[in-house]
């Protein structure tokens, strides 16, 4: 009666030093693996295990940080090994965020080049980029940098050979099969399609961070005047966007 798993995962559960346990579900960027990671993340968080400090889900693995002064690592390792890792279920439907983006021109200096590379017009690239509902695969590199899966294959674009030493905060970009939202000014080899006035990370705001692994994201185009208006509000710590509940 059980659902035939198309690809049963055989995760590795290993201690990382004496303050973390790694649950490794794969070694590649794969929506199925990431879904399993996020399902495990939700399950382990719901257990509220004593001594577990925080969980870091990534594309393909889940790192469980614990306080070795509060829990014996062997006990936690045994507990995590007992989870039904091969059938973690489907990840909970994440919250849905709608993120405004000013595309092209000074906001997205690579929009025209990406369009030319794929034999498209700039408006068509914007349509393809605003079409899908993306899933937040992970947040990392710097606070709030959001890695998104679900890019339209017609926009798959290899990264720049020579990454730019700095790209603007709020950049909305694509790299390979991924899409992303930058929180801070960072070096990047991804292609800059536009900018959002939304600050995915603002330490002086409550909450300081918005998007979380497993959440869903849609992009909606805005004009430069709207960008400027929203950017002023964001500078005063307005989050600008709120999630629709899952």
């Amino acid at each position, binding site marked *: 009666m059980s659902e035939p798993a198309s690809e049963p995962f055989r995760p590795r559960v290993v201690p*990382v*030093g*004496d303050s973390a346990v*790694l649950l490794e579900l794969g070694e590649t*960027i794969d929506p199925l693996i990431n879904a399993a990671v996020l399902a495990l993340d939700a399950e382990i968080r719901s257990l509220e295990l004593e001594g577990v400090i925080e969980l870091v889900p990534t*594309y393909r693995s889940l790192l469980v940080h614990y306080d070795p002064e509060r829990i014996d690592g062997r006990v936690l390792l045994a507990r995590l090994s007992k989870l039904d890792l091969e059938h973690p279920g489907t990840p909970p439907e994440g919250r849905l965020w709608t993120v405004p983006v000013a595309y092209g021109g000074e906001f997205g200096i690579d929009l025209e080049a990406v369009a030319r590379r794929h034999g498209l017009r700039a408006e068509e690239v914007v349509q393809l980029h605003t079409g899908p509902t993306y899933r937040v695969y992970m947040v990392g590199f710097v*606070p*709030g940098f959001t890695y998104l899966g679900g890019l339209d294959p017609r926009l798959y674009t290899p990264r720049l050979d020579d990454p730019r030493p700095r790209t603007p905060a709020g950049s909305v970009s694509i790299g390979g099969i991924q899409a992303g939202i930058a929180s801070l000014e960072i070096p990047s080899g991804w292609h800059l399609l536009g900018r959002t006035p939304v600050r995915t990370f603002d330490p002086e705001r409550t909450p300081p961070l918005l998007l979380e692994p497993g959440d869903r994201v849609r992009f909606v185009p805005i004009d430069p005047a709207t960008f400027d208006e929203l950017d002023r509000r964001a500078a005063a710590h307005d989050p600008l966007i709120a999630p629709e509940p899952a």
Partner: protein
Amino acid sequence: MIDPTPSLLVERCGPLVTVQDVGRFGYQRFGVTPAGPMDPWAWRLAVRLVGAAGNDAGLELGPGGLVLRVEAERARLAFGGAERALAVDGRPFPWWSVLGLVRSQRVEIGPALRGVWSYVAIAGGLGLSPVMGSLATHTLTRLGGLEGRALRAGDRLPLTDSEIGAGLPDLTLAAPPPEPEGPIRVVLGPQEAWFGKAGIATLLEGTWRVSPRSDRMGYRLEGPRIEHARSPNIVSDGIVMGAIQVPGSGQPIVLMADRQSTGGYPKIATVIGADIGRLAQVGVGGAIRFRAVTFEEALQARAEARARLEAALAGLEPVACSGRLDAGFLLSVNLVSGVTAGEP
């Protein structure tokens, strides 16, 4: 009558002095680094010495010195970590002490005599605004502490309560906790399979030097080239303090307090919790060797480190009137990079 905020005034300051607490946890899933102390054991012992109530924020010192002026009715400070000369109003005190101070006293801390990182724990902690629940400074993302940056001369550090510890005696450790000898212990993995036997043998048999390009984010080590059996790139995963990642150059980097939350190089081994502070205290140019232990041995080593800390605390004794006001001591206080004991 104006009573200014009770505070500590930073009169002189070497580089890399930051406000730290235990660290900023709970936000690594958003890409936020914990930061916190480089030598967690020394930090913990200093905090226990001062008997922190309130928040446990204090100062971490890099290799240089620090001069503080008490601008409060009183303050109670503990000093620990890498050994230094310590003087109050020119009078020497033993390192690893907790001292009650009064208004306008001047605390002079010399450069590290050996090791790198030292701690000033403050009774009651600091009256700064926590960022995401912590005062730990992460300078790369300008978070926490004082404006997210290292301290400089002229900074004022507000105290939360300058009455804490009033009337308590000055105490010092009879003996600071002895450091274990021998190689830095590691647990292999989590990506040891990306290196094979040859790569692991190189890690464990080589002698490594701490590169000058090391900082609170990571210690870069120089030595024989660690061969990868597979690609030097992995799909990013989470990182703990002490993770030893090996990029394509074959030269390992031990990720420390200010590490990124995730990274894309395979990690050959992880320095165990008991030895992370000992590694942090190896300065630039210092030599390091590694030894692999099991997970169970790592837990045992942690229990031993905890026992050493408790044993040290059990040996508290009153600070004796020191007769160490000799030329050698004064020289050691004066020969500070960026700090002098003299008046401006």
